[in-house]
């Protein structure tokens, strides 16, 4: 009924394969453990610092809903800064554009001169976070429907 093999026997190659399999899995588990970050490792979590903590004061003074603009630095890391600004300011929609009545500035070392974009500084929150107004879009402020 059981075919060519007795149910009580295993071919040697099966035993060897099982042992190799277990050994390889354990090696990989060892890598998993070795690469596990320590609780206080230096490259720890900066998401809260770069989002909620960084934009906390600004968020308290912005409208609760609508759309605001955004200006920041250029380059690949700055994309993450923008995403984290949106993460912190939700449910406000943060559009990566200065074409809004209220514009959030996010710079690593203080707000730059933005006069060329026609923006006017409303408040500097420190650490490179600032709020601007764009007179050209004053009517459309942040109360505009996000959709």
């Amino acid at each position, binding site marked *: *009924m*059981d*075919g*060519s*093999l007795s*149910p*009580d*026997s*295993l*071919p*040697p*190659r*099966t*035993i*060897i*394969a*099982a*042992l*190799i*399999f*277990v050994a*390889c*899995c*354990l*090696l*990989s*588990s*060892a*890598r*998993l*453990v070795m*690469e*596990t*970050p*320590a*609780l206080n*490792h230096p490259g*720890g*979590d900066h*998401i*809260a610092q770069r*989002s909620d903590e960084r934009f906390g004061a600004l968020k308290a003074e912005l409208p*609760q*809903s609508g*759309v605001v603009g955004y200006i920041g630095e250029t380059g690949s890391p700055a994309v*993450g800064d923008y*995403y*984290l600004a*949106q*993460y912190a300011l*939700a*449910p*406000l*929609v*943060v*559009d990566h554009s200065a074409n809004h009545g209220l514009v959030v500035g996010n710079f690593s070392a203080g707000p730059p001169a933005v006069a060329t974009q026609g923006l006017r500084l409303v408040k500097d929150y420190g650490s490179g976070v600032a709020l601007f107004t764009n007179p050209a879009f004053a009517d459309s402020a942040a109360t505009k429907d*996000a*959709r």
Partner: protein
Amino acid sequence: MALGLAVIFCVVSGFLLVSLCWPRGPLGPTSRKGGEKWGAPDPLLKASLTVPFGLGVFSVVFFLAQIAGIRKLLAVDLVTLAGLLAALMLRRGRAGPFGAGPQGLKPSSIDLAGGSTKAAPFPGSNFAPNRGAKATKNNPAWLEPVVSAGFFVSVGAALYSAVLRMLAHPHGNGWDAFAIWNLHARFLFLGAGLGGEHWRDGYSTLIAWSHPDYPLLLPGAIAHFWSCLGRNDPAVPAIIGFLFAFSTVGLLCVTLSMLRGRRCALLAGMALLSTPTFIDLGTWQYADVPLSFFFLATVAFLCLHDERVRTDSRSAGFLALGGLSAGFAAWTKNEGLLFLCAIVFAVVWRMRVERRREGSAEGGVHSLVPLLLAMVPMVVVIVYFKRFVAPPGDLFSDPSTMLHKVLDPARYWAVIQWYASELFRFGHWLVVPGTLLLAGVYVAMGKTGERLRHGAGFRASMAALALTLAGYFAIYLLTPLDIYWHLRFSLDRLFLQVWPSAIFLVFLSIDSGNLCLSTTSQQRQSLPFANERATKCT
């Protein structure tokens, strides 16, 4: 208090939903003579399903409550719970659409299986040590403890790593966590708190980079818990990610223990637990691991249904659970929609092939009704979401551009090269790639002894996974993004989505007379489905 209630509602909702579809009659070739009884519920199998299904229910409830403008979520939870309970009681009262009907398992199948009419242990008992195993030269006594020890070391390593990663990165560890999934959850939770239709604010084309067309299983469930908690605590998505990862391992092990025995289950579980990328992504708060859970659940239920068919039991409960799983997969990520279409196509195709080959009316498309019916609620919710809430996706451009891309051989070559290299790089294994290891196990253990005859569900699952991978291939061909960038940052996650299902199917393919059953005839008979197969295939 409210959070505690929410956790209870979530778990109980999942349990009731699973129980509602659970097949009547025992899972294995055993029955109380002449008596109909509820399916011997393997507690471990139900436990591994309860939390993910509960989260699925929670996300749908949250979404529907927002559409209806209902703010009292706990009341909605209570009503949902009562509805599920009432449906379950109703089903207990009479054979439901997914029930086995009064016949349960035929006594003849028990006799074929070895003449035993005694109740066999429930499948979960296969995790118990093989105390009766006879040590022989070719079945050394030390093999069992070695495999068990290896498994538990892998569990320990994975738990240690997962917990520390969660603590080190409470907001997840990657852009998708905060730029997509948790951001969507924040929009839902904080927007809903503002009242009106503000929960829709996140579905703006101004932030198309956040993929607002992605479905809501994860964000909806997270937002539901946050609403009960009253704040957006990062621990919620972290714990949900953790639970999905270890529920996937549980489902893999328990289902394989039912179908192939304890050793097979332990080896398969070890393969998944030792895949560093799986543990990584499980704690990164991405949706790929939850999606992999629902892929695996669909495949596992189709294969369990195969075994029910072998025992002449007409239960459609496993098909319904498979349909629900596929529906939840589609509600998790857009890739799940592709999988849902693939599974429907593959199952219909295999059923027709089987029917033609065997010349019987059984296995016709009508037998798929439970599978398709169970998909319907989720499909309706997804269609509503895509039609009335989400903006269009960004994967498809204008037809002429897409045609140009489809006709470009260089794009095919690029994707083929990446698929081939990712097969060896995938998973971040040390020394031997996991895919090679799995292939080696199949070659070493899979082709001797008794021949397995795979059912339509198994073949359909293989076909559906192949179709899903082919669909991913087509999406890379058409992508409006830079193809190399797209491949670099997503292909390993797409492979991970099918990885638990691939492990499951490979171990299911391994010869049952070889390694992957308990080692004595007595224990073979204790497996719920194994004796039936052994009898019919020899």
